[in-house]
């Protein structure tokens, strides 16, 4: 993860404009607290316009005179600003003649989603401690946000929202302690794509953290001796087939008690645009950008990928797309059950079924969809999500249909950062609902 050096003298420069939407402000404030926890020497400065914002969202912090920046004693400088535009990283109230001594100072920014990012410099191994953990980490470019090649599936580096292990999962590196756990200690493992990874939440905001807290609270309140650990094995781009591999490679030996398969979006969207033959003949779903890997590996860039232009177009009929998803999920379920765990069928939410969009959701989604090659595919996938929801309703299995659940929410609820990825409030709903399902299975409700 990108993290501040707790021993470095750190200046935080607040420069938020007055019109930041409230959900963004809350997230920035939360992120400030998260990222600066443990930093021994912290100096907060702010331009005049930002002071009311700080008083409102961070009333307990002391603001110092910007003149302290002249001391040039700082080793880390963090710009808190929700814009990506680098020009905002240099504060407009910069004292005349003062320029930060760039070679010595490490610059960071906290963005609108609460991520801590390197500012005006490349990522390095101080930002992400697992950056060089294994050969495929080392062979990949040290980008802050990128997919990279891994022989057993595709990995994504997404630091800035909290710790990840060497394979990019938001779990501790060492899981061996869970192997011979006490029978009262229930291990819940959650799978899915980037929405499962929970890319716009800080660690305590992840739906898995919400689940864990909720389950332990329920256990406590009901006088049960059970206790729960919930781990997040969501990974960007993952389809169910990737979740199966993750389970086999990393989790099978842990003998988890519950598996939550929180998915749907990637299998459906990728399934629609990929090579129909692989879908139909092998129930293979894959991320469309893997075709680019093949071109790079074999030097066949002159050959066309499956999608020959943009916007992308669906190439398979709905039964094949959904058939792959449900087939693979049943396969996952049978493996999990054979290993002694309960399998919870989750269907993740997306913004298309939300009753009304929050104004910030509408703005974000519009910006996200601009020039998005999947734009038409998103819209065309709606009947498939509906059909998947109907199918799940018919199934007599432990389940949670969040596609349907999120249909209850309206324009006062800011739940989506884009069509599928959730805000902390969205993850809160997901976590509470999954906790209810598992609590029911454990007789805690």
């Amino acid at each position, binding site marked *: 993860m990108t993290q501040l050096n707790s021993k470095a003298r750190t200046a935080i420069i607040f420069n938020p404009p007055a019109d930041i939407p409230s959900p963004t402000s809350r997230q920035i404030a939360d992120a400030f607290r998260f990222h600066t926890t443990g930093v021994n020497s912290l100096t907060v400065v702010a331009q005049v316009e930002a002071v009311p914002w700080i008083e409102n969202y961070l009333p307990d912090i002391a603001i110092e005179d910007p003149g302290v920046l002249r001391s040039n004693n700082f080793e880390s400088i963090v710009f808190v600003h929700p814009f990506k535009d680098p020009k905002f990283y240099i504060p407009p109230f910069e004292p005349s003649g003062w320029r930060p001594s760039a070679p010595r100072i490490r610059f960071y920014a906290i963005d609108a989603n609460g991520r801590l990012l390197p500012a005006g410099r490349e990522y390095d191994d101080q930002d992400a401690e697992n950056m060089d953990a294994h050969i495929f980490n080392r062979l990949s470019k040290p980008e802050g946000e990128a997919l990279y090649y891994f022989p057993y599936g595709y990995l994504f580096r997404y630091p800035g929202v909290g710790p990840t292990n060497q394979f990019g999962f938001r779990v501790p590196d060492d899981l061996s302690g869970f192997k011979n756990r006490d029978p009262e200690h229930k291990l819940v493992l959650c799978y899915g794509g980037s929405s499962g990874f929970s890319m716009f939440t800080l660690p305590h905001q992840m739906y898995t953290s919400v689940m864990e807290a909720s389950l332990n609270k329920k256990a406590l309140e009901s006088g049960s001796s059970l206790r729960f650990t919930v781990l997040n094995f969501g990974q960007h781009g993952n389809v169910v087939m990737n979740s199966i591999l993750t389970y086999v490679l990393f989790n099978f030996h842990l003998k988890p008690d519950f598996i939550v398969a929180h998915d749907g979006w990637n299998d459906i969207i990728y399934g*629609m645009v990929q090579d129909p033959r692989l879908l*139909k003949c092998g129930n293979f779903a894959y991320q469309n950008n893997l075709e680019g890997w093949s071109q790079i590996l074999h030097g066949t860039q002159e050959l066309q990928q499956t999608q*020959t*232009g943009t*916007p992308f*177009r*669906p*190439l*398979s*009929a*709905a*039964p*094949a*797309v*959904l*058939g792959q998803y*449900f087939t693979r999920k049943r396969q996952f379920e049978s493996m999990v059950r054979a290993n002694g765990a309960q399998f919870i069928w989750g269907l993740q939410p997306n913004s298309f079924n939300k009753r*009304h969009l929050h104004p910030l959701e509408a703005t974000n989604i*519009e910006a996200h969809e601009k020039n998005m090659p999947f734009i*038409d595919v998103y*819209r*065309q*996938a709606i*009947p*498939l999500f509906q*059909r998947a929801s109907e*199918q799940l309703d018919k199934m007599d299995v432990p389940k949670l249909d969040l596609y349907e659940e999120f249909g209850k929410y309206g*324009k006062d609820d800011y739940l989506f950062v884009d069509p599928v990825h959730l805000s902390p409030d969205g993850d809160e709903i997901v976590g509470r609902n999954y906790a209810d399902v598992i609590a029911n299975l454990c007789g805690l409700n």
Partner: protein
Amino acid sequence: MKSRDERNGLAEMGYILGLSFDFHDSAAALVKDGVVVAAGIEERFSRIKHDASFPRKAIEFCFQTAGVSPADIEAVAYYEVPMLKFDRILWSYENAGQRNPDYLDRTVASWLRYRKFEIRDRIFEELGIAKEKISYVGHHISHMSAAFFCSGFDAATIVTMDGVGEYETTSWGVGNGTKIQKLGSADLPNSIGLFYSALTAFLGFEVNEGEYKVMGMAAFGEPTYYDILRAMFRLEEGGGFLIDTNYFEFLTPKDIPYTDALVEVLGQPRDPKQHFATLEEDLPTGITGAEADAILAASKRYADIAASVQKVTEDVIFHVVDSAVRATGIKEVCLAGGVALNSLANGRLIRERGYSLYIHPAAGDSGSAIGAALWRACQGVGKRRSAPLTSPYLGTRCPRDEEIDQAISDSGFQLHGTFAPDQLPFEVARLLAEGNVIGWFQGNAEWGPRALGNRSILADPTRADMKKIVNERIKFREPFRPFAPAVMIEEVYKYFECPELRDGTSPEYFMLAVHRVLPAFRAVLPAITHADGTARLQVVDATSNPIFYSLLKAFKALRGVGVLMNTSYNLKGEPIVDTPADALRTFSYSGLDYVVLGNRIVSKDFAL
């Protein structure tokens, strides 16, 4: 023994391949002995809307249909003259009020990169046909040929109007037998096609795609901007016209084809994302109060502009056509070019002038593939006229039952049933009468932009909510867009104010003319009656499309009207479906309830 043709002095001609590509709507057509053997639009095969690339798949389709190879091709006719077109580009640059070097750079780079100077070489490289067999036919001559030689008229006035060909934007002439004589033209920048496109862009729609939307929008407005827009044109004696170039940039356009002067007189252009609603019930859910009022007011302004654009366009069309008819003395009129798809104007020309119109069903550039080939045929030995084009079903052939079954099996959808030919119309009519929206896939694909009952989406026109359902849930398009009716011939005059039809080549058979729905029946047919009480009807009889006609009859038996709502079988931004697999894929991703493939009905059910 000599054949009849040889006895008549008409020597056998080989196959002539007509091609149009490199701008938009690439197409190929194959003509033999004056008869169009096959014609295909590349987008239907490549599934890329308005595909402009070399029409490999369309050519392959034509060759397969005719059972020929490139070796059998006697001549290839390309639909325009590239060097003349490039000459016009240079001339435009030299004569532009404000020269735009970027435009020239981009255009030259594009011509070099895509080898637009080397049409003969490219055709030779692709097909191996000797360059000597390849000829260029003028852009407007190709259009005129498509219209006249397919019309069945022995003699006719011919008018072509489009954006721009080589130099011409509008041309008129006379056709007689195998001859076409050009009588006059208007040249760039005086273009009614580009005027319409510029205002299409102004109204927030995509050029070469959204012109129909302007026509649809016009019905919601009053032509309150007519005087302003009309003053931009000077109509000249003889059929020509001049356009005030202060308002438009047609010679070397940058991003938009109009100038600030147009914005000054019309106000701000419409943002493409802006909602359009002139009635409160058409507003998006949840929008009320001041926001709703603002949308309604803005929409009214844009509708008024659209209505004014349409009225001015009709003025210019009438001026050109009337002048041409005066010059030729012939009231049989062939229209071609993209402007000929302005069905509102076509309807008025029929009703108000009494012209006997023929409009090629693919009046745009794709139709020029046929036009170029027919022109070439008429220059050759024998000079035979083509037969009238009474059928628009020149495209991909009707799949065999086994192919349909395979596609259904591949898709995973469940078969609702297989029906005998005499039972199918009744079952489909029953499903339609229940309110289902149905994909209807029969026979050969249509040639041209209209779905005429072989690749159609059908619905019950008597249901008031059907327009909204199909626009929003099926086609994913703007809620104001109208839908056309298909009507059995016996009921045309009962429901529509339609002049007497000439024969199977009348524009009404190709959905190319708008007429009024009789007031008494507007409430009976709400889903196909547009805001101004009109409809762009398609007449169907037992000859033009037997199975579609049977369906209309069956529907009449159930619902009392021999009319169906008929729209093209595609989603927004997608070409019309071509194969059963396309049809089933589109079925997947839309709110269609059933699809009929031949005599099979497929439901939305599938097992998971």
